[in-house]
């Protein structure tokens, strides 16, 4: 297993940089073109949420760890922000039409990846994304 680690400030400017890094790594594995697009979207959604919700007005860091296995790519996206209540926050989205977000980020991650796991507390949030290599 090989690890690649990337740390960016939680600014929207650098979500695209994470996407480029992710696509480079996925390109070295036996993923299809469609898989690579799925991975780019899922990792962007996780980073976008960390940029938008984790830190309020004073940006912190986002750490992205890519773990390359023979048969899968695992990506952990971590912030040290305020965390959230995953059941409550996702449900109340429809009651708040002011928000730009439509509650699609987590939906996208879940439908594009093989496995999605949230670990969130007042100390921050870690999203684990897994995409399997189909061979």
């Amino acid at each position, binding site marked *: 297993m090989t690890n690649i680690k990337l740390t960016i400030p939680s600014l*929207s*400017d650098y*979500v*695209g*940089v994470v*996407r*480029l890094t992710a696509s480079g790594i996925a390109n070295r594995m036996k993923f299809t073109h*469609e898989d690579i*697009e799925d991975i*780019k*979207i899922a990792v*962007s*959604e996780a*980073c*976008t949420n960390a*940029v*938008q919700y984790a830190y309020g007005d004073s940006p912190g860091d986002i750490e992205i760890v890519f773990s390359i296995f023979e048969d899968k790519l695992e990506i952990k996206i971590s912030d040290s922000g305020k965390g959230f209540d995953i059941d409550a926050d996702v449900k109340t989205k429809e009651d708040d039409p002011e928000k*730009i*977000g*439509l509650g*699609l*980020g987590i*939906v*996208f991650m879940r*439908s*594009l990846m093989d496995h999605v796991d949230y670990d969130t507390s007042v100390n921050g949030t870690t999203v684990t994304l897994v995409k399997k290599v189909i061979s």
Partner: protein
Amino acid sequence: MVLDLNVSIRENNSIPVIDLEGEIDVYTYPKLSDALQYVFETYPNAKDLIVNLDKIRYIDSTGLGVIANGANQIKKINDGFINIINATPQIKKIFDVSGLISANFKIFDSESDAITSLTK
């Protein structure tokens, strides 16, 4: 340009068309929101607006959110629609997953398909 979004606006058969090129994400989506607002102000009676994704190489929930908000707005003002053209299979998949297609926007394969349908 890689990692950026270019926006330009034109008309086809009096229907406003927004041509997009590049990537729509959390960094670039304000350019798309601005273009939508500009079109709503410039064409206050437009029932249709075409958004051309031909040169879009990346879009995620941020971009879909902006388009969906725009669709709600044109629905409210003129009972109108946003018409998406030239979406790649990958982008169509994303629209599918979002469950937004049945809402206030339509998807056409090409600009001529859209114009034929919207002007008849």
